[in-house]
């Protein structure tokens, strides 16, 4: 079957629709998912298609959405819960990290928690500090919870379908400014991408850029600028923060000996810190320069357009960091 270029939004819709058609245990719940069709219109039309039983508008209560998803999953269903933004997932943190992530281990594997919590992340839309952070790393801290961070329509579809079919809890994080991005995606209803596999998105010999989510877009733009200066960046898209697959990063680093990590997370305790630590652990002898990190500034994300832009990563900041590690 031919791949069609579709948007990330369409890819997510298709993944949800196909999995709901395939498995009756899959159902959707969250704020505004029904009549409104989802905060970012991913479930538009689903209420009519699947009915109230499987597409449920819930009260405004994130703790209950996540907690009830844990309960429904333990009782044998496969909930796909939606939390409007990952910044509101903090209201449900206990259900997600203390329960979804730990139930299987704590109770000797008697219960699995096959749930997916879909949520959006990221700034750039002037929504202020309690809507706009990209704190995915916090959730990746906890064993027992998978964290998906797709950056293309292709990845979004294959990863969401795999997440719904998997028996583990998955926090599935979509970037709120990328839903209109298009790429070719298979129509095949059994198109799945493996959980926890990163992907080389661009080939290059001079520097390894490790990134995910919105960082992919900034890094791709930066790589084009760098190419004009004769610097070829290899871009590794992690796609999952847990399981974290650094093999392609190590492979790439053996060739480039330089690494820049790009993410929208805050600058302390982030993916860059993890990657830098693992690189020095595994490939110390290959290091020709310190690992650099490009992240958001260490402030609550501000509202006003100009200062919000300043606080976020950008292709320019990446170009600057790459030039520092390649020297000259």
């Amino acid at each position: 079957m031919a791949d069609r270029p579709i948007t990330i939004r369409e890819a997510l819709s298709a993944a949800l629709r196909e999995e709901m058609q395939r498995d009756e245990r899959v159902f959707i719940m969250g704020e505004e998912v029904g009549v409104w069709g989802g905060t970012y219109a991913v479930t538009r039309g689903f209420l009519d298609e699947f009915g109230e039983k499987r597409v449920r508008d819930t009260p405004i209560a994130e703790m209950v959405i996540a907690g009830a998803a844990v309960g429904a999953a333990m009782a044998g269903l496969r909930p796909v819960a939606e939390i409007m933004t990952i910044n509101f997932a903090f209201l449900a943190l206990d259900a997600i990290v203390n329960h979804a992530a730990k139930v299987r281990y704590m109770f000797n594997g008697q219960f699995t928690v096959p749930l997916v919590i879909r949520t959006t992340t990221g700034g750039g839309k002037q929504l202020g500090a309690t809507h706009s952070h990209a704190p995915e790393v916090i959730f990746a801290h906890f064993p027992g919870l998978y964290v998906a961070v797709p950056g293309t329509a292709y990845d979004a579809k294959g990863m969401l379908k795999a997440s719904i079919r998997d028996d583990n809890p998955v926090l599935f994080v979509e970037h709120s400014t990328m839903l209109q991005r298009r790429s070719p995606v298979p129509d095949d209803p059994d198109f799945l991408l493996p959980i926890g596999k990163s992907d080389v998105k661009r080939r290059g010999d001079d520097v390894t850029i490790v990134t995910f989510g919105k960082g992919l877009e900034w890094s791709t733009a930066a790589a084009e600028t760098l190419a004009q200066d004769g610097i070829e960046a290899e871009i590794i898209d992690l796609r999952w923060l847990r399981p974290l697959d650094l093999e392609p990063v190590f492979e790439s680093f053996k060739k480039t000996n330089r690494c820049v990590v790009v993410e929208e997370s805050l600058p302390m305790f982030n993916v860059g810190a993890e990657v830098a630590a693992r690189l020095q652990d595994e490939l110390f002898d290959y290091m020709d320069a310190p690992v650099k990190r490009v992240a958001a500034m260490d402030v609550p994300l501000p509202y006003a357009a100009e200062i919000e832009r300043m606080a976020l990563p950008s292709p320019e900041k990446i170009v600057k960091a790459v030039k520092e590690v390649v020297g000259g």
Partner: protein
Amino acid sequence: MATDLQTAHQIDDTGIDLDDQTLLEMYWQMVRARRLDERVWILHRQGKIAFHISGIGHEGVQVGAAYAMRRGHDYASLYYRDLAFSLSLGLTPLDFMLAVFGKAGEPTSGSRQMPSHWSSRKLGMLSSSSPVATQVPQAAGAALACKLRGDDRVVIVTLGEGSTSEGDFYEGLNWAGVHQLPLVCLVQNNIYAISVPVHLQMAVPNVADRAPMFGIAGAIVDGNDVLASYCVMREAVERARSGQGATLVEAKTYRPVPHSSDDDDRTYRSRDEVEEWKKRDAILRFQVYLRERGLLDDDAIAEIEERVRQEVDEAHAAAEAAPYPPPEDTLFPVFAPDDRV
């Protein structure tokens, strides 16, 4: 004072102790909030601002509630619809315009927070952020502080009916009940939370029906009746101030405009419903009442409109001309200085 909302067009002034001048001032506050709000919708349509969340339709309950407080003395912890409330507490149209344009000098946040996220130490407005209902536990804490300090301040906290589904609402009011706090929780029930109707939020008919489970007083009022709202709120504030504990007040009202500039309300409710509610608009009803009392006539109404238009024009022009926050504002210190340690 059971009000049949389906037929309510009148104003209930039973027990009202306000003089004529105050009544006219309250009318002016409502009109001023409405016109300012309408102007901001236009600015959004013109692509000049990023976002607007409107208070249109809620002016009656908000102005009534503000005038029931000791303004500047009591604390208010407000939510995003409370433009009329904030103006009544002393926020200016220019302050609000600076916020919607995201300009330098915006007094509530330095334009680092979204507009309609009220905060003013000077005006007694505690900060309110975006996750709904989080202000309820905070207001309970502020009320606890007032009680511990032994001052006679009261805390008023507001939210929408949909937001009462959050645990924060229950946990905060349970506290208020247990600690007998000087708190008034005002729920502005406009029967929708974005697209979700109130019956999908709760299985009881009224938000205020829950008051007994917290061991606090409850009251229901017609939120489109400014004077009835004032009366009920004044009673609740007095109860709090005199040490008799908290009250959950539910004001029945309506939002005749979309939830925010990101919403299209035609997808979830009929135009007939909206038109029906517009007939019960708080400003119209108050205007009719004031005419009947001989306090307003066509000339006086036109004069108020003209005064408000000028103020809104000036605020709009000044905010549009104001500079953006300088880049160094991004680096506003996150931590308080530690020079007092």
